């Protein structure tokens, strides 16, 4: 446990330092969501309808943007070699890295959501629903994205490849995340059904992600 706690602590601290990249995701999220009302125009009803989808798209793209550094930074400075050789199972090390990434790149998105909801004419209940679905769904984005990050790690400049690889895995998360938020905001569907599926997607990716990522890291040894 000490080893995993140390890994999480290190990744969080590196990300929070200048140039560490923790802010990049949330700033990108901010930019996308702030620009959207200006692009759509002053149609409040339309904004309210699109709001949850815009927030979710922003969060998805923001997490893709930061995920490609997940293993790449460790590969470049040689840390990945030592992590592979260590007595900590690689799967658990992957869990620790994904958790650290979610803490610095996923959690700030959820914290920023209430403020951005105002810009999209969302009322309290709808904003709360989006924040709740993001809380349930962003771990799925991180853990499935980790598989892509591990696959792309052997290819230099694999950033764009990561987005393409992860796309099919993130589409269900996006569908059910937006469906649940819209159900809460406008109805008529119940909030519970898509939200349960979203939670299930997160839990499944929590299990599958680390094993798949560890397997592809081992496969990519060179």
């Amino acid at each position, binding site marked *: 446990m000490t080893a995993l706690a140390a890994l999480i602590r290190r990744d969080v601290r590196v990300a929070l330092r200048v140039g*560490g990249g923790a802010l990049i995701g949330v700033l990108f999220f901010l930019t996308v969501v702030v620009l959207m009302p200006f692009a759509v125009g002053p149609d409040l009803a339309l904004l309210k309808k699109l709001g949850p989808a815009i927030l979710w798209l922003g969060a998805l793209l923001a997490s893709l943007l930061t995920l490609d550094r997940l293993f790449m930074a460790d590969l470049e400075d040689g*840390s990945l*070699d030592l992590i592979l*050789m260590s007595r900590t199972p690689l799967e658990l090390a992957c869990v620790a890295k994904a958790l650290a990434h979610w803490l610095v790149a996923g959690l700030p998105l959820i914290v920023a959501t209430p403020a951005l909801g105002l810009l999209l004419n969302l009322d309290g209940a709808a904003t709360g629903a989006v924040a709740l679905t993001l809380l349930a769904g962003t771990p799925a984005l991180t853990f499935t994205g980790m598989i892509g990050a591990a696959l792309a790690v052997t290819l230099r400049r694999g950033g764009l490849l990561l987005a393409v690889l992860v796309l099919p895995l993130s589409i269900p998360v996006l569908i059910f995340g937006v469906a649940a938020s819209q159900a809460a905001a406008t109805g008529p569907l119940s909030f519970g059904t898509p939200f349960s599926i979203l939670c299930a997607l997160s839990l499944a990716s929590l299990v599958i992600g680390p094993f798949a990522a560890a397997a592809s890291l081992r496969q990519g040894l060179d």
Partner: protein
Amino acid sequence: MKLSARDLRCVRGGREVFSGLDFTATAGEAVAVIGPNGAGKTSLLRLIAGLLASGGGSIALEGGNDELTLPEQAHYLGHRDAMKPALSVGDNLAFWRDFLGGEASDMEAALTTVGLDHIAHLPAAFLSAGQRRRLSMARLLAVKRPIWLLDEPTSALDTAGQDAFASLMAGHLADGGILLAATHSPIGIPAQELRIGTIA
């Protein structure tokens, strides 16, 4: 303890780097891996460290900890030093000590031994190449491992640093450790030579 390799073969990118490589190292023995650039010195060390897929042959460790794999009992000191520039010297070393399972008390002593104790608070980004090498050496001391795999260990080190490193290696061997060092220059301790690649 005995580390032995039989008929090792290494293939990278479809090209055979070396084949039919044998060596044996017993406790307290150092092996200097010598060969021209591209002969596969680094590949051999990474193969032993489990960081490259083997192209054939076998590596065995006798008398080690049976519950651990060979890489888990080895230190690998490569060209890249695995230190985060944004974190301080002390934080970097403390992380590897915690992650690799070293003793808490060893860290201060390790930093003092390699002569970095006065800059433990400085971000690693500000270290020179030689100081980064010294920080990597401190990792070998902060976490105990019986096998050291060293890739060009003395590159970028000044004369005092090379002497210090030679005494560290001698101490490791005296404790019954095994070390393999890929090198172009003498490492400063008695070692059996393992030549790979064509000798001009």
